[in-house]
Every structure is written in C-alpha cells, then in structure tokens.
C-alpha cells in the first residue's frame, strides 16, 4: 500500500511567533509544510498548488478573505473556511450570528446617520456605549462613549475617516468587567484551554498590555463554547467572553487566533495541535 505524504500549506503576511509555533508543530509531526508569503503570491486559476489543505494565517483580514475564496473554489480546503471567517471578521455579523442562535451576547445595533443618536440612546439605554469599527482587531479604534457630547464628537470624527466602513456605526452596550475577560481557544471541535486576560484598562486585549492567567474551564463555559462550535462549525478560533452580572456574554470570535502568549504561559503546544487537527482533515 502506498501512503500519500500529506502536504499542508500555510499562507502568511508576516511570519510571527504564532506562525513559527505552527512551523515547529509541523516539524514535530513530520508534516511537509509549504509556506506561502502573500508578498510573493499570485492567485491565478491555471496554477497548481501542491498541497492538500491550507492554513490561512494572513494578518490582513481582506487579503486573507481573497485567499480563502480562491482556494475553496478550487477544492483545496482552507482552515478557517469562508463561512467561519466571514462571520468572525465582521463584528456586526458576529453579533447577529450570536443573537440569532441564542448565544448570550452584548446588546448591539448599527446605524448610518449621526442624527440618530437620540434614538440609539433610547434603544440602548443609559450610557456608556462602545463604538467599534465592524472590521478591526487588537482593540484598535474602539471608543467608550460616556455621554451624548462624546458620541456626537466621535461620530463627527469618524465621518472624515477615509475608509467607508467607518460610517457604519456599530454600537454596543458597555459591559462592566471585573478587570479581565476570558479567551477560550478552540481547535476543531475541542476546547483547548481558557485564559483570563487581565487589564486595568477597559480594553483587555493582550495586544494592549493585558496579562494572561490560566482560567479553569467550568461547565457553563464548556457548554457555551460547545454551542458555538456546533452552530459555527469546526475550525480554529478564539472566543472572547465577558463575565457580566447576568452571566457570561460572548463578545467576539477571532478566526486568525493568536496564541503565542497562551502557548508560552500555559505550556500547551497549540502549534502542534493545529497541525494534528489539519492532518485529521486530510487523511
């Protein structure tokens, strides 16, 4: 019997520590990993790409999106697939997905005209609110809206930003957190680990200086994440969860999940786990 050697592609914009952990994981598991640098990549239908599955690690959301569309349409599975990527990349779509599937999340709305802030105030209730770009990450351009004056001022500034999606005013209630949030890392249908991201700032991302500590998984967290996996489908993602006075609230789901700090702090070989999961999808 001849066994086919599995080849996995990894497409990247910048090779960070996270991607290097995946490369190490491939070496440990004897996998032939083919690296695709988007600076050198030309996607054209006649070209043969010599791998069975692609791990999309593009740091640029929009480049990653095109890469996924291309390879999926030429029957090379991509992790994460376009369904997961689309839902996770667009925060408004994530909110709709969570709400529609009865997964507890933060009250949200979208509007397009700054003259509607009185009505928005009536719907969302008392300030503060949080205004976020529908695309973006690492807590970038998040605004905590403490009152009407602040709301008017921020919306006026956003009107002059060049990117059209800054005129989509995605607004949520502000949730008071106990100085931390929870990040759950999921690979396939398996919950790998959970960490607290502690930060005295209201934005708790580790990219903004948040400190990581292990969080013990309890039944409520496990059930919540299993529900997300069952509805969203298998993939590699990070779920951000707030602890509110009304229980857990899912804030975001990240589809190009960063894990270097988690791997180093908890000593879990997430890079290898990603490779093992991908191998299982080929064989």
């Amino acid at each position, binding site marked *: 019997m001849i066994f086919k050697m599995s080849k996995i592609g990894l497409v*990247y*914009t*910048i*090779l*960070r*520590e996270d991607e*290097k952990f995946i490369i190490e994981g491939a070496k440990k598991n004897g996998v032939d990993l083919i*690296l695709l*640098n988007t*600076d*050198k990549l030309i996607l054209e239908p006649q070209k043969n790409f010599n791998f069975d599955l692609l791990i999309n690690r593009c*740091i*640029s*959301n*929009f480049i990653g999106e095109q890469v996924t569309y291309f390879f999926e349409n030429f029957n090379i599975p991509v992790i994460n697939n376009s369904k997961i990527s689309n839902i996770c990349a667009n925060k408004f779509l994530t909110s709709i997905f969570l709400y529609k599937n009865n997964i507890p999340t933060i009250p949200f709305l979208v509007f397009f005209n700054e003259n509607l802030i009185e009505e928005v105030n009536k719907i969302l209730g008392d300030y503060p609110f949080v205004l976020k770009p529908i*695309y*973006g*990450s*690492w807590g*970038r351009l998040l605004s905590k809206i403490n009152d009407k004056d602040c709301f008017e001022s921020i919306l006026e500034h956003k009107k002059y930003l060049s*990117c059209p999606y800054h005129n989509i005013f995605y607004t949520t209630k502000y949730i008071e957190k106990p100085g931390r949030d929870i990040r759950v890392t999921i690979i396939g249908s398996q919950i790998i680990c959970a960490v607290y991201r502690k930060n005295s700032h209201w934005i708790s991302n580790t990219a903004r200086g948040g400190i990581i500590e292990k969080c013990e998984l309890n039944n409520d967290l496990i059930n919540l994440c299993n529900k997300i996996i069952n509805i969203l489908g298998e993939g590699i993602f*990070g779920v951000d969860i707030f602890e509110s006075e009304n229980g857990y609230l899912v804030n975001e789901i*990240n*589809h*190009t*999940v*960063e894990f270097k700090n988690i791997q180093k702090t908890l000593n879990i070989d997430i890079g290898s786990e990603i490779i093992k999961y991908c191998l299982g999808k080929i064989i």
Partner: protein
Amino acid sequence: MYQAECPICGSQAEFSSIPEENELINCNSCNNRLLVKKIENNQIILEEAPQIEEDWGE
C-alpha cells in the same frame, strides 16, 4: 551562523539558519521589530517592521 545588519542600530543580527522572507524578528541590540525583507545568495536584508495596517488582526 548567518548575519544581517539591523537597519536601525547597525548591529549584527544572528540567525542559526536561513530565515523566511517576511519573518518578524526582534533586534537583540536595539529591541526594534524587524522584518526579513529579502534573502539573496544567503544574504539577509532586514528592514524596520511595518506599521500596523487597519485590517490587521485576529
């Protein structure tokens, strides 16, 4: 051992093997984030890591 000059502080960054293009590294001397821009005939060219773009992230 391979070496390349840090474009910011001018010190020599060392690599045990040839890195990948667009690999992110930290300069051991000035601690700035650098990117492996080009590799030609085992010669490694570094540049300052790019600023964060608006659609970058998780």
